[in-house]
């Protein structure tokens, strides 16, 4: 009986894999007028919330523009979405799964570590990939296939340091998450720039799964800092804001692009905490997009849930939207659905009409972006207020 069960299981497995394999190659050759765009984003794990919001932007863009004309032929665009679980060991199989599904280009991921992990898979397959909000320089540094449409950590760190220094903050408390290369990287660049300006720094890290930020807030106060810099994931951010309020932190909190999210504004609403972030997208910069996506989320229960239960916009959603159109532009420019042709067309691409500004790529594959938006949270309305555009210099 046991052996029978074992063999049945194996048999089912083999059948399923045959179905998966057969199905995959069948749809490749069978339907010539569909083109697949791979979405490589986390839907679970530490960055699940952000990844979902980024995916939303891509899905909305797909809703707005479901077809693309390549070389005089109309193609339907289909999204192939995989969950990389914010985990380096799962990212490799997830990336390979996308490649195996026969996608023409890949978008993502939120979180740089998984993007770096997947880079080799994409490189082996000659698959072009467009990083949406992965700001770590290592993503594109040694990978021919990886492009990205956002600014980089060294740039963002400098911008944030400049902002802090210009506003009379002399001593910064920097908090990053242990084992999270995004927050650690950004903190490193911030410290570098801030020290160059003459500032003083206290740096600490918190272990993952930590939800008790009392002592970190107390440490910042104890050290007499002027600014609390913690560009961490939104989960931790909401808890930090809460503790900052409970202990009357008394200094502004400064953070990077991840904090430009409705999670933060939701947490900060009605609290006496000053929050300043740098970001890609200025809400209200493109009213048509704003109202369009809000309406879409209002009519789509799943989308609204994935956005955290309301229709407030996160910067990563706008970036996801842009990434989709950059991908379409690249396909048009290539005049082909072949990954190799698209890859060849990407360096020369000039994508316009995007909500976060035009995109051209430099020789490394990074977008030429020279300014970031500085936004401040209005604690009464729970909305972002535009402060200024800040350049690195």
């Amino acid at each position, binding site marked *: 009986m046991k052996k029978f069960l074992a063999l049945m299981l194996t048999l089912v497995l083999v059948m399923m894999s045959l179905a998966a394999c057969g199905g995959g190659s069948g749809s490749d050759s069978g339907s010539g007028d569909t083109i697949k765009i791979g979405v490589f984003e986390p839907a679970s794990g530490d960055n699940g*919330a952000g990844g979902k919001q980024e995916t939303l932007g891509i899905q909305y863009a797909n809703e707005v523009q479901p077809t693309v004309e390549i070389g005089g032929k109309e193609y339907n665009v289909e999204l192939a979405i995989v969950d990389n679980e914010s985990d380096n060991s799962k990212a490799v199989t997830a990336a390979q799964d996308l490649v195996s599904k026969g996608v023409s280009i890949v978008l993502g991921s939120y979180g740089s570590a998984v993007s770096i992990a997947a880079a080799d898979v994409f490189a082996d397959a000659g698959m072009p990939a467009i990083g949406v909000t992965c700001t770590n320089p290592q993503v594109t540094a040694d990978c021919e296939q990886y492009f990205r449409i956002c600014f980089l950590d060294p740039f963002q760190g400098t911008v944030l340091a400049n902002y802090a220094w210009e506003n009379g903050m002399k001593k910064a408390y920097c908090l990053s998450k242990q084992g999270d290369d995004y927050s650690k990287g950004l903190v490193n660049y911030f410290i570098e720039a801030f020290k160059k300006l003459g500032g003083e720094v206290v740096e600490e890290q918190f272990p993952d799964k930590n939800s008790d930020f009392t*002592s970190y807030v107390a440490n910042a106060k104890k050290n007499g800092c002027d600014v609390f810099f913690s560009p961490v994931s939104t989960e931790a951010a909401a808890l930090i804001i*809460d503790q900052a309020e409970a202990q009357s932190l008394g200094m502004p909190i400064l953070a990077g692009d991840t904090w430009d999210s409705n999670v933060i504004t*939701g947490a900060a609403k009605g609290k006496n905490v000053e929050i300043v972030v740098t970001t890609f997208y200025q809400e209200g910069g493109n009213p048509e997009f704003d109202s369009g996506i809000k309406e879409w989320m209002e009519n789509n229960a799943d989308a609204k849930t994935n956005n955290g239960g309301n229709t407030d916009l996160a910067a990563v959603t706008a970036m996801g939207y842009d990434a989709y159109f950059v991908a379409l532009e690249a396909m048009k420019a290539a005049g082909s659905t072949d990954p190799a042709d698209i890859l060849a067309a990407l360096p020369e691409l000039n994508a316009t009409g995007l909500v976060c500004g035009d995109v051209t790529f430099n020789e490394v594959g990074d977008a030429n972006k020279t300014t970031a938006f500085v936004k401040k949270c209005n604690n009464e309305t729970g909305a972002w207020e535009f402060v200024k555009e800040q350049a690195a210099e």
Partner: protein
Amino acid sequence: MGFIQTWLPYILAGVAVGGQYALIAIGYTMVYGILRLINFAHGDVFMWSGLIMVYLITILPLWLSVILVIIFAIVLGTTIEKVAYRPLRSAPRMSIMISAIGVSYLLQNFALYITGGLTKTYPTIGWLQRTVSIGSATTKMVTLVTPVLTIVLVFLLVMLIKHTKIGMAMRAVSRDFETSSLMGIDIDRVITVTFVIGCALAAIGSILYFSNYTGIQPMSGAMPGLKAFVAAVFGGIGSVPGAVVGAFVIGVAENLIKGIGWTNFSDAFTFVLLIIILMVKPTGLFGEKNIDKV
């Protein structure tokens, strides 16, 4: 004075989180005392109580939500015991522990599915989250309420164990499972009551804990659960006052460690403490010596 001023915020935070660990730890220590099982799913019952509160408060008044959350935790805990532990009671201890790990995996993944992996913000419970100042420190009201409430609940529990019939049955079963069953004690009932008490306290703990740290996600229960278990071992597994003392020690110590700047090792410290205790005094502070019978 300067010393106290500097460290007061850390000690307050430690006492508060210690009280919350204590409420979870009681569930671990009682279940272990009776079943000799590390109930890995206990931390997830705690997480689920928090999650249910988030959903209930949107449609029901606060007092009713609190009652329903406690009932939910009790139902969940006893169901887990009935479905996943009872059928394996005569199986090797490893199987039942694997079953506990499996239940924990299921509860976490189910929470992931329901919440979509997004952090849920815990509702504000009126005065619990009000800010108060004590000397140099400002903190939430819940920080002050937790230790008091914890001690009251533990006092009641100890009274129950010492002076009621079911309490006597519990002590008997934890001393010797087989003999007490031969003496006519309804083992199933004792175990159910144990789970009921443990889960109810975990639910109360979740209200206090998440009022203080207001984000809930599927993994929120894992770390507090492990720390509470370490607290139970520290105090001597099976001993309720021991678990409470252990929890306060761990809560205060981990916050002081963060205070002196060793933030990297604040979680690792808990496990260092566990290993030291297991090496030096495996029975814990208040534990009784266990003799192996052939």
